[in-house]
């Protein structure tokens, strides 16, 4: 890869490699498939680099390309992860969240919960919910960008995000209540509470 285009591409796009790999992992759930997806994304991005508007969010552009490749490769799996079909009750607000708030002071959580536990709690979330949390809280995308990436209306992104954060809070609260030792999260108990 030589020349001005190659240099610019390396400077602009390649720093997003880790984030893209993370997104690939979320979409496919498999490290080998995520690697292939990353490679294919960069190849396509390089081919269409003239269409990229410099100064705009390159990470969002690359994520969009990855999503399209993923959709074309596996429509079946994409239906599970992205929201091609919005469930009717998803647009509503989460009343339980209102009830849950205020009863779990974060300061007490902070002493008992460690980042490993949050990772574990995150792994217990349904895929669609985990996706919005990571796109927002790790990758820092705006609601609008997330809506485009997961093919949802912004309202659905907001309600999913709220619900996902609510679930995380519950997982962690249950954990801090039940674990006085080093038992770690118990997926079966916790997921049952979700239903």
């Amino acid at each position, binding site marked *: 890869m030589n020349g001005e285009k190659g240099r610019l591409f390396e400077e602009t796009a390649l720093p997003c490699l880790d984030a893209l*790999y993370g997104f690939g992992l979320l979409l496919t759930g498999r490290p080998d498939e995520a*690697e292939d997806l*990353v490679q294919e994304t960069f190849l396509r991005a390089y081919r269409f680099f003239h269409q990229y508007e410099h100064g705009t969010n390159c990470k969002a552009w690359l994520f969009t390309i990855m999503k399209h490749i993923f959709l074309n490769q596996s429509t079946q799996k994409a239906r599970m992860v992205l929201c091609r079909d919005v469930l009717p009750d998803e647009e509503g607000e989460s009343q339980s969240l*209102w009830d849950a708030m*205020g009863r779990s002071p974060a300061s007490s959580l902070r002493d008992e919960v460690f980042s490993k536990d949050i990772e574990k709690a*995150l792994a217990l979330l349904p895929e669609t919910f985990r996706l919005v949390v990571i796109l927002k*809280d790790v990758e820092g995308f705006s609601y609008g960008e997330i809506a485009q990436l997961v093919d949802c209306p912004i309202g659905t992104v907001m309600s999913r995000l709220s619900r996902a954060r609510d679930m995380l809070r519950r997982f962690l609260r249950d954990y801090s209540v039940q674990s006085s030792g080093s038992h770690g999260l118990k997926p079966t108990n916790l997921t049952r509470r979700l239903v």
Partner: protein
Amino acid sequence: MQDCQAMFRIMHAYLDGELSAKETVDVQTHLDSCPECAVLYRNEKLFLDLVKESLPSAVAPRHLEQKVKMALKTSVAGERSRKYLRMVAVPALPMAVLFLIAMAVFFSPERKPVPALVNAAVNTHQEYLNGNVPLDIASRDPVQVGLWFEKRTNFPVSLGQDPVKNLRLLGGRLIEMEGKKVVFLAYEMDKHRLSLVMTAAQGVDLFGAREFTVKESRFYQSTYHGFQTLSWAQEGLAYVFVSDQQEINKKACLICHGHGQDQEAIKRLSEQGI
């Protein structure tokens, strides 16, 4: 803002910095005056900060960057050699053209060419029905779909707010045809899938097996790959309507007459992109 629940509904949007300046001021005013919400807000902020700092960023395997760079190099080299091959292949082109003309004359004299836009419309319609191409934007909201395309096309895409009865927008996809941006809109009517394709009319050829004129607009109707197509150009835009139904004109008329006055209806139809 009077209502604490209303405050609560937008608290995450506030924490995520997604509110307008006015909404932000409203929230701040409410938080200053309501100690209960202020406590909720502080707890939620602590919780989200904790989540944000604890969530791990993904780290790609160390070999991946090298692998990607190699793949890019190979692909760039491949592109160059393909260009070379094209140069070699040029002298063979006249022969190929002669051969194709001979084939056309001897074997399928009745077959007429298909306008590129109609071809693109039918192919995309078919691929979409088969689930091979997804919609870039899946939404029933004409405004949202219109706005999505507005940023991506060099022509206006205004979709009507009050679509014809039974006609539901499913979403759209941006396709390319000979370097032109083409809007593909998917609709559903009485459980049948319809598609409408539109692009800037300049340089687009339209023709068909049947022609007719309605209120000074020339319409072309054809059957292609088992689908009915109706194409026309109006006010600088070219349209192709694709349907699996036999009576596409009747359908189109139905849509037109559903709106009352013909002239007005046709104008509105083109505005709505139907």
